[in-house]
């Protein structure tokens, strides 16, 4: 436990981008809030103001989530490779820390801790941006952009998205770490090439595209599996309404679908494959010390 603590701290020392990128993104969004034109329509009803607040928080959150996903993927692909490349692995391995602990801590950083950092950054950014926009608009819009209830719902949404993302993308993370522990060079190429070649091979010789379907679904189907998106849809105004009745969704609790996500065989088959990849990455870490 104590060791994990130090290993995680070490990742922050090495990868200062973990907090510098979200800080830079937050700074950019705040500059935009300060200097771009604000044209929020005057909101009259309670429903409209809640929708505006939700849309604002979701848009800010989505930006952070997208950047986070890209950075986390890069981090996982790089984390078992750089110290082999610069041979510093020989220093880390001279200390009484097991390879399993090392690999699992890096996985934890990539899948939970980095998302939490972005979550915090998104919250701080949204808070300050809402404040700035309220002052600039000098109207009731401002108060509507900061709706406490909506804010709490967004917190629930973030936690739910972090957890489901970690479980759903475990095979992807495992694959990236496996390559990171294995490749002698060009990790990005190795991460992309095998699935791509498998896909082309399948198409040429069998005329099917099962591989691309499986991979495509894994990369894009998370919202579909973890939310009730068949029942609800986004409106142009940024609200979410019931498909059938057109009524707004009462709260985030109606939108998320944890029981569906956590009972889906697809979720757990993927997670099992992810665990196999990670065990393999640990084994490689034990055997491959240098490039």
């Amino acid at each position, binding site marked *: 436990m104590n060791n994990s603590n*130090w290993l995680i701290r*070490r990742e922050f020392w090495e990868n200062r981008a973990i907090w510098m990128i979200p800080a830079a993104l937050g700074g950019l969004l705040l500059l935009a809030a300060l200097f771009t034109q604000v044209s929020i329509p005057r909101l009259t009803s309670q429903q409209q103001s809640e929708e505006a607040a939700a849309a604002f928080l979701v848009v800010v959150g989505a930006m952070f989530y997208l950047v986070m996903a890209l950075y986390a993927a890069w981090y996982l692909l790089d984390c078992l490779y750089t110290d082999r490349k610069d041979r*510093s692995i020989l220093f880390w391995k001279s200390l*009484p*820390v097991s390879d399993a602990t090392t690999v699992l801590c890096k996985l934890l950083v990539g899948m939970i801790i980095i998302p939490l950092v972005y979550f915090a950054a998104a919250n701080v950014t949204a808070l300050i941006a809402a404040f700035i926009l309220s002052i600039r608009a000098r109207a009731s819009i401002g108060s509507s952009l900061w709706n406490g209830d909506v804010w709490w719902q967004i917190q629930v949404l973030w936690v739910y998205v972090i957890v489901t993302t970690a479980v759903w993308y475990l095979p992807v993370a495992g694959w990236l770490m496996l390559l990171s522990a294995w490749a002698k060079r060009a990790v990005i190429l190795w991460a992309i090439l095998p699935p791509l070649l498998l896909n082309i091979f399948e198409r040429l010789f069998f005329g099917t595209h099962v591989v691309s379907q499986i991979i495509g679904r894994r990369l894009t189907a998370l919202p579909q599996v973890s939310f009730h998106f068949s029942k609800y849809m986004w409106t142009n105004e940024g609200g979410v309404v019931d498909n059938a009745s057109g009524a707004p969704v009462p709260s985030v609790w109606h939108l998320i679908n944890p029981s569906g996500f956590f009972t889906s065989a697809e979720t757990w088959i993927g997670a099992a494959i992810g665990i196999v990849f990670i065990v393999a990455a640990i084994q490689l870490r034990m*055997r491959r010390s240098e490039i």
Partner: protein
Amino acid sequence: MAALIEARDLTKKYGAHVALDRANLKVEAGRIVGLIGPNGAGKTSALRAILGLTHYEGQLTVLGREPFRERTQLMNECCFIADVAVLPSWLRVDQAIDFVAGVHPRFRRDRATAFLAKTQITGKRRMRELSKGMKTQVHLALTMAIDAKLLVLDEPTLGLDILARRAFYDALVNDYMDETRTILITTHQVEEVENLLTDVIFIDKGRIVLDSSLEDVATRFTAVAVTAARLDAARAEKPFYERHILGKVVLYFENVDPGKLEGFGEIHTPSVSDLFVAKLSGGAA
């Protein structure tokens, strides 16, 4: 007392290439052992196996443990400096001390800071800002502050200038070594370490050519500088190596009574480096 390191039929293959070929060796506690061999002889493979960094065939115990399976526990009592370049460039000196203090139960922070206080190195410096010699000092400070039974050094002074090398070995002998510790050093620069070793192990083409204490070396090996007139008579005693220098011939004998050789010329015990050359240059003349 049981040996600290004991290898029997230690074998390591990389595909078709055999890096270690049924090597047997033994290291006792309290010794400073030089593992000496030419480049590509299997030194590094042997060390990697001893440190649990690689899988191997054959039997190997280090401090009573199986290195590959029990590397984590082994590293509580054993430390190693692979070579000078391995501290990561982004690491700060104070972070390095914090980290090792955090994960190593036998690390004594005061010792590391006391050692560094004698140098020009401050805590906020990053490894990338330090010279090779300074990095070695940091690594040595970290390592010497660990109360370990076994210290393994793999080409520790590679790329260092003569001053830094001397400082490294002086610190090692004066501040670190005592009867409870054992040091295993690999190097291909024999001259540099021969004055501090108590034991030598010669390795060549994956096999152990010699494993002996220096006291035994002195009784086992004899070198005689023979004049041309007596050469044939001396050769009859079967030297295993001949070296021609400045008109003289030096003959090297193993397990031959020095009394028998006295008449042939000036007798001396070969230095480690001479013996290394003699042993590895192959068959008798």
